[in-house]
């Protein structure tokens, strides 16, 4: 069974939700090391948990041999977190509107909407080897 791998500013985890807490512990520890205030730590942690969930489920199709990579960097007062999968990519414009009345009681489909609401910038980059979503937040 593969395990999380931590190298400097990066953690790689196999594609299973059981590794979400490992990502969260690494992320929150890194952010507190940057001196980020708790409310912002929570906003970034929520957003990263959404992206890692998406990478596991939609990107890597929960294939344990495929990894999700999370890299945390800081430049001045801006934190950037990049979440990468090894999947076939997705079209963020094809996500149903979670605020539409007919979708209000859907149990899923709000993740990216929440990320956009909490973060300053969200960029999706699809490559031949997977998708990377980069989020930035002023701290």
């Amino acid at each position, binding site marked *: 069974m593969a395990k999380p791998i931590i190298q400097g500013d990066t953690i790689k985890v196999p594609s299973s939700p059981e590794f*979400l807490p490992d990502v*969260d512990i690494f992320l929150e520890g890194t952010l507190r090391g940057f001196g980020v205030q708790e409310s912002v730590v*929570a906003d970034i942690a*929520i957003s990263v*948990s*959404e992206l890692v969930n998406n990478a596991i489920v939609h990107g890597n199709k929960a294939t344990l041999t495929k990894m999700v990579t999370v890299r945390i960097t800081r430049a001045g007062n801006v934190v950037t977190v990049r979440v990468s999968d090894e999947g076939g990519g997705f079209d963020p414009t094809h996500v149903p509107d979670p605020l539409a009345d007919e979708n209000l*009681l*859907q149990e*899923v489909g709000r*993740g990216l909407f929440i990320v956009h609401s909490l973060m300053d910038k969200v960029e999706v980059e699809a490559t031949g080897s997977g998708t990377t979503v980069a989020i930035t937040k002023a701290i």
Partner: protein
Amino acid sequence: MKLTDREVNNVVILEPRGKIMGGPDASLLHDKLYELIENDKKRVVIDLAGVEWMNSTGLGILISSYTTLRNHQGELKLANVTDKIQSLLTITKLVSVFDAHDSVDEAIKSFK
């Protein structure tokens, strides 16, 4: 997430604690809810005081709890919604779905 429960005046209070982010969290609350319904306990308060934060998976768990109870002629109330969770309920418009109260006592009293 950890989950404890207690009962007051035929109302079950579920007390999740920690972060609700996915993985086994959903099945933990889901299984508990079905156990309650099987035992004909259908008036439930989820006390969110001990929840640091939740993501969309957590919101999905709340919606699932709400619809499951409603489909079994039961009722769900929320109590002690933290500012962080309240802001998520607001931006997702789910604030209009849930009956939320400032305390567990108020939530219990609100059952007719």
